[in-house]
């Protein structure tokens, strides 16, 4: 137990880094994912192809390789960004694919009849998207998006392999010095559990508030 007291600052610091990684990554992945879904749903074949190519390529590459390309590849073309940013960019690029797919199926779940009704009222295509499609699909996307957020939290552990000392890396180091694996990894598990449960609970609250009764 003294491990907790001895390494309190390190452990809290690691947890904080994990939280920072996730909290910065999620909105970026979301925005990028929505843009991708717009590409993939847009009527211009070239843009649709770009969206599809992005998703197919990035989703099928291991995230760690993606992050490694950013960490070690970008400096080759003269762009050296901090490791923390590299991890955020890599995770965002990767999870944007899942956001994109979630948004797409969310949009598909909106009733065609309601879209026609909005068009029949004289709403322009963009207005139909904003007032009917987006709000309704967002609501059906709350839980899938929460799952993506949770996966981002867990995926942020990859930062440990790329010089970002987040929760997993910290716990690994503490264990390296103290050889208390059970305690150390129970602590990490607890840390992740607190974060993911918070996300799950918040998603539940949001979903209940915005649920569309059918």
């Amino acid at each position, binding site marked *: 137990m003294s491990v907790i007291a001895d390494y309190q600052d390190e452990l809290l610091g690691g947890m904080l880094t994990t939280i920072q990684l996730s909290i910065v990554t999620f909105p970026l992945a979301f925005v990028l994912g929505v843009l991708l879904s717009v590409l993939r749903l847009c009527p211009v074949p070239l843009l649709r192809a770009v969206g599809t190519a992005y998703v197919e390529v990035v989703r099928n590459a291991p995230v760690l390789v993606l992050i490694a390309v950013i960490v070690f590849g970008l400096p080759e073309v003269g762009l050296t960004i901090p490791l923390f940013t590299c991890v955020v960019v890599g995770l965002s690029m990767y999870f944007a694919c899942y956001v994109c797919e979630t948004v797409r199926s969310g949009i598909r779940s909106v009733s065609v009849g309601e879209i026609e*009704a909005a068009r*029949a*009222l004289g*709403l*322009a295509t963009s207005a139909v998207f904003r007032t*009917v499609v987006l709000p309704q699909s967002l609501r059906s996307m709350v839980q899938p998006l929460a799952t993506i957020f949770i996966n981002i939290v867990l995926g942020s552990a990859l930062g440990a392999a790329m010089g970002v000392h987040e929760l997993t890396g910290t716990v690994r180091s503490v264990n390296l010095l103290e050889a208390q694996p059970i305690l150390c990894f129970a602590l990490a598990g607890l840390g992740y559990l607190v974060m993911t449960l918070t996300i799950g609970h918040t998603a539940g609250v949001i979903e209940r508030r*915005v649920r569309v009764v059918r």
Partner: protein
Amino acid sequence: MTDRPPLVALDGVNKYFGSLHVLRDVTLSVGRGEVVVIIGPSGSGKSTLCRSINRLEPIDSGTIAVDGVPLPAEGRALAALRADVGMVFQSFNLFAHKTILDNVTLGPVKVRKLPRREAEQRARTLLDRVGIADQAGKMPAHLSGGQQQRAAIARALAMEPKVLLFDEPTSALDPEMINEVLDVMTSLARDGMTMIVVTHEMGFARRAADRVLFMDGGRVLEAGSPQEFFDNPQTDRARDFLSRVLHH
């Protein structure tokens, strides 16, 4: 009925779904304040005709004009035209995430740029007119089918359209709710609203229609006053159809 130009004019309209010829040389004009009821067997192209008038379905040849203006292609002009052509669907299609009041104010606020207060005032008047003033704050799913369809009619009326299209507005309703919707439609007809109604309700057709159109196989086979049509149909197909629906 008057010598003013027709409000809705179709001329030689053809429409295909792939190789399926759904509308064949349809020519039709609907005057201001006229109520036209379209009947015909399933698959005869009634919905397609109705939907092509506000270009929810594009047509392959021929022309459609509303109030003298040919239907524009996709874009702002088309949106503006649609604002003048109200539509009521079989399955209501109320916006599930908005209250009844917001369903009715959406068009006026977003399309007509009416101030919200004014739009709400108008919406409440309309909801009162269709008999569901007390439901304004509820979500669509909490209303009965008849109430939802009346809300949908109010939503269409809120745009102050020149013409209202109805595509089987009572087909999805339980029998006991059909009349509350038909009553609203009858009173609209009496007030001079121009209406094109696809329906199987022959009573409504007799009561409210100025003209009845009989469609089969994508063609308008007969057109006449309700009396002429119901008492003395000209074609075998119409007689056959009527005998089936009337002795049902």
